[in-house]
Structures are given as C-alpha cells and as structure tokens.
C-alpha cells in the first residue's frame, strides 16, 4: 500500500485528465508570471510607435497594442498583477473568513451577529459591491484587493461556519473538551485542521472569481490605474481598437478565460477528491 499521503493525493486528484491539464496550465501561467523578466521577450512598457497595432507575427507573437507594446510581454507581466491581486484577495478573505467562520460556528452567541452581516453583504451583487467600495476607497491595487476581499470573505465565513457546526459535534471534539483542552486549541487544531479541505476548495474558486472581478473592475474603469498592466486594463484600453486589431483584446481575454477556467476545474477536482461521498462514486 502506498503510505505517502501526498502521492496518494496527487494520484486521486489527477485521475481525471482534465484536472491534470488545468493544473499544468495554471502552473505554467504562474511560473511565467513569476519569471516574467526572463520569459517576456520585451519590456511591457517599451513603446515603439512605428510598430503600433501590428498583428501577431514573428517579432511580436501576439501582436502589439496602440503604443506598439508587445502584447505577449504585457500578458505575462499582466499575469503578475492579475494573479497577484487574485492571490492577495484569497489570502485576505481566507484568513478573515476562516477566523469569523470558526467563531460563528463554535460560539453560538456570536453566530447571530456575524451571520447577519454576512447575509447583508451577500445580498448585494458581487461586482456592484466591489465598484461601490472602490469608488469610495479610491482606485488603487491595494483598494481593489481590499474591496474584493470584503466581497468574498462572506463566502468563506459561510463555508467555515457550516463545517465548524458539524465538526464541533463530533466525538473527537467532545473528547478534547473532556480532557480539559483549551478552547483555543480545540479551534486551532481540531476544528481548523478539519475545515481545511472545504476551505482549500473555496480558495481556488475565490481565486478564479477574483481574477475575473479584477478584470471586470479594470474594464469598467473602477479598478487599478491603467498604467499598471493587468489583463483587465489591457482589455479596457484596447477595446476602442478592437475592430481593427482584435488581438489587443482577444489575447488578454483568453488569458483571463484560461486562468479562471483552470482554477475552477482544479477547484472541482479538489472538491470531488475531498468529498468522500463523491469519491466513492468514482
């Protein structure tokens, strides 16, 4: 029998080929974003007016934009910002959401208050709430992260609270209480370790949503300032040239679709694998 849980994890995870493909795609995108200065053929901000709006070709694989900047290089650097913002949103919303979810699920007295705030936030459409928040806070990468974190934290709270409610009733938690284990340890070890799986699944979905939402915000002009190349700002500034130079918007658009789709597929794969009921059915 294979004793290594990590190996087993990946073997289960990649039983479905699509999940493997998505995982590889994500890995490549992230690697390129990390190694952007070495991978990108041009500086993302290098303006070459004579080569503006050139179609994809040998010099510029994915063409150039209205300032003659290389679209491929900008997509790679844009991945840094887009995925970076997405990742930051995931980190912030996971941390805050898990904390409040644990508290709401474990202490019934806090449940009412926390969940009413969560309900109120979730009653508003995601993108509208984000636009409103950025409008109030001002457009900057930091504020986009803040706004999207506020938008997605309630989802995490819900997932964590639901799992906590189940786990707190399990005998091993009762056993810990009977032993006189501190509440802090019960929450941070017994419950947190066991909500990790659903939270991880949620994290991949939020990552995907956040990448999409950032693009949406930037496109609407309520996101990061246009100087910073993100996939969203690329489409936003390129849209007026789209009729003559489809590549200016098509390729950043494809990048968004590819990243978001891969994240969702990986998330689905994780969920199928971590849900014992579904796993049995496989």
């Amino acid at each position: 029998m294979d004793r290594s849980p990590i190996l087993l994890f990946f073997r289960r995870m990649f039983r479905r080929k699509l999940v493997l493909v998505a995982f590889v795609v994500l890995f490549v995108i992230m690697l390129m974003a990390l190694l952007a200065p070495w991978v990108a053929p041009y500086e993302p901000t290098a303006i070459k007016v004579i080569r503006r709006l050139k179609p994809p070709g040998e010099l510029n694989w994915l063409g150039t934009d209205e300032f003659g900047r290389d679209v491929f290089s900008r997509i790679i650097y844009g991945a840094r910002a887009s995925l970076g913002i997405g990742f930051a949103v995931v980190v912030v919303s996971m941390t805050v959401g898990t904390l409040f979810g644990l508290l709401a699920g474990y202490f019934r007295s806090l449940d009412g208050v926390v969940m009413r705030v969560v309900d109120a936030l979730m009653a508003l459409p995601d993108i509208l709430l984000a636009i409103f928040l950025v409008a109030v806070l001002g457009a900057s990468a930091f504020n986009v992260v803040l706004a999207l974190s506020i938008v997605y934290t309630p989802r995490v709270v819900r997932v964590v609270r639901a799992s906590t409610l189940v786990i707190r009733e399990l005998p091993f938690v009762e056993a810990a209480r009977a032993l006189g284990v501190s509440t802090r340890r019960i929450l941070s070890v017994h419950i947190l370790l066991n909500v990790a799986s659903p939270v991880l699944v949620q994290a991949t979905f939020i990552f995907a949503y956040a990448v999409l939402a950032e693009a949406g915000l930037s496109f609407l002009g309520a996101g990061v300032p246009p100087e910073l190349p993100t996939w969203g700002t690329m489409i936003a500034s390129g849209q007026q040239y789209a009729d003559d130079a489809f590549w200016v918007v098509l390729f950043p658009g494809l990048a968004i679709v590819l990243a978001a789709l891969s994240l969702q597929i990986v998330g689905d794969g994780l969920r199928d694998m971590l849900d014992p009921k579904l796993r049995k059915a496989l």
Partner: protein
Amino acid sequence: MDKSPLLSIRDLEVRFRTEEGEVTPVRGVTLSVGAGETVALVGESGSGKSVTSLATMGLLPRPAGRVSGGQILFRKRSGETVDLATLPSSDLRKLRGSEIAMIFQEPMTSLNPVLTVGEQIAESVRLHMSLGHAAALKRAEEMLELVEIPNARRRVHEYPHQMSGGMRQRVMIALAMSCNPSLLIADEPTTALDVTIQAQILVLIERLQKELGMGVLFITHNLGVVAEIADRVTVMYAGQVVETGTVGAIFRTPRHPYTSALLNCLPARAQRGEDGRRVVQSIPGSIGPVGDGCAFAPRCSQAADVCRTGSIMLEAEMERSVRCVRWREAFA
C-alpha cells in the same frame, strides 16, 4: 429436500476494482435456500456476506463490481431455473420485483420520502397485478394490516418521515410482500432497531415466512438473531463460506475453529476465570489480507503447517460442510 433448492449459489466469486487494484471480497461462496426455509448468512465485517447478498440481488455497484465466477441459480415459479449472475438486467429487474424481494438495514433510504407509504406500495402492486388505482391502494392497506401496522387505513396516507424506524421497516416488509415473492433476501433488517422493536420484526418475518411459504436468506452479524430465526446457518470468513449446517448443529457442535471461537466471543458465554472474574474468549487480531492456505489460520489457535499452504476446500457431508483440514483433530 427432494426438489432442487429455490436458490443455489455455487462457488461464487466477486471482484471489485478499487484505487489500490482489484480485490476479491467474495471468493468461494456456496449456499442454498429451500422453499419455506430460513437460511442465515453470518459473518463479521469484511466477511463478504453483504457483497454476496448484493450479487444475488444483482445490485453490485457498477462498473466497479462484477461476478467473476460461479453461479447463482434461482428456481422460478414456472419451474425454470435461471442463473442470476448472467441474466440480462431487465429480466433480473422483473424477477426482483415479483419473485425475489429484499429488505435492508435502513428503511429510510429505501423509501421515497415524497410519496406516501400507500402510494409506494400501490405502485409496486400495480407493476405486478392489473389493478386500478383505488384497488391498488386498498391492497396497500391490506398489506399494512398484514405487517401489523395499527390504524392501517389512516397510516396508508402517511409519509415515511412521519413513522418510527420500526414502522418504516414494517412498511419495507409490506412493500416486499406486495408482490408475493417466493424468496426474501433480508440484509441486516433489524440491526438499526431497538431490541424490543427487533423482537417484533423478527416475529413478523417468521410469521410471514410460514404463512407465505417463502424461502428467506437472512444476512446478519448477530448470532442471537441467527439462533432465533434460522433453520440453517452459513458462516462466512474473509470472503469464503467456512461452515454450513443446521442451526442446532452450528451452535451445539461447531466444526470450524472460527465458528467455535466466534460463539465463545459472546458475552453470554463468558467463563469464570481462576480469579472468579467472568472472561469472554476473544480471537486475536482482525481479518487480515488473504494469502495462501486457510484465511483464518493467522488467528486460529488450532492452526498447523498444513493450514498455511494450498487452497482449503469446503468438505461436504450430509447436511453439513466445513472448510478446515483439521476439523476432525481440532474437535477430537
């Protein structure tokens, strides 16, 4: 029994595909159930008794599980004998609703929560008899009376969740009886029930079996229930039948060391030790991976070298059979 038995399972083998490769949870089951007879299939978890019953009913989870060897012969009312293991699934389904009936451990999951119990029984009745809606519902009410549900007229309109576990199991039995089966397969039907309710269900099954002359294959891990209800007993261990005999023979003079050890594990058979304390015997370890020789050998107090090689055959003699090369010496 002069006639061929109602159900005759011969050398059944079932394989399952799993993540870790193929496993063979059933690898040599031979048993028979005659008309009007109750046969208990006994075993602990991992013995393969439930897989055997699922295979008999054609309910192995597909595509992971399949019958890979042996036969499951069933004698139909028409006198024709069919092999359930190779029967097309549509024919099997027809048979399952009419001549073979089943009841399970958890009735709640086998009943449809959005239909009244009356509607569910009526639906089954109409599948097998050409009755109108009202007549079928009337028949459902009679079925509830048959299984001794009080106020059948009123309860026929209730939903499963409005009933207790015991009542739901009665409904399941009514549903199973509605097509007048000749064989009833009962898979741990009383395991989830309280002991006073279990007693009611056991007496009910016994009564129905006598009245309707059904053959009953009763799968259970509870030896008390076996002694209560069975005519004959088949004991399974690690996917194989290790012993078969009448209930009296099995309990009084078990021949397989496993049967004997299992009976001695019962708290009611605890013996007073030297210090005056009552101690039950136990079997060391647990069902392990199957290798060469007798599967029980690693836990057996009587095991010798001959037990650890080759494959051990089921020795049949009169009404009894035992899969042990040393049973004569072991119980001499």
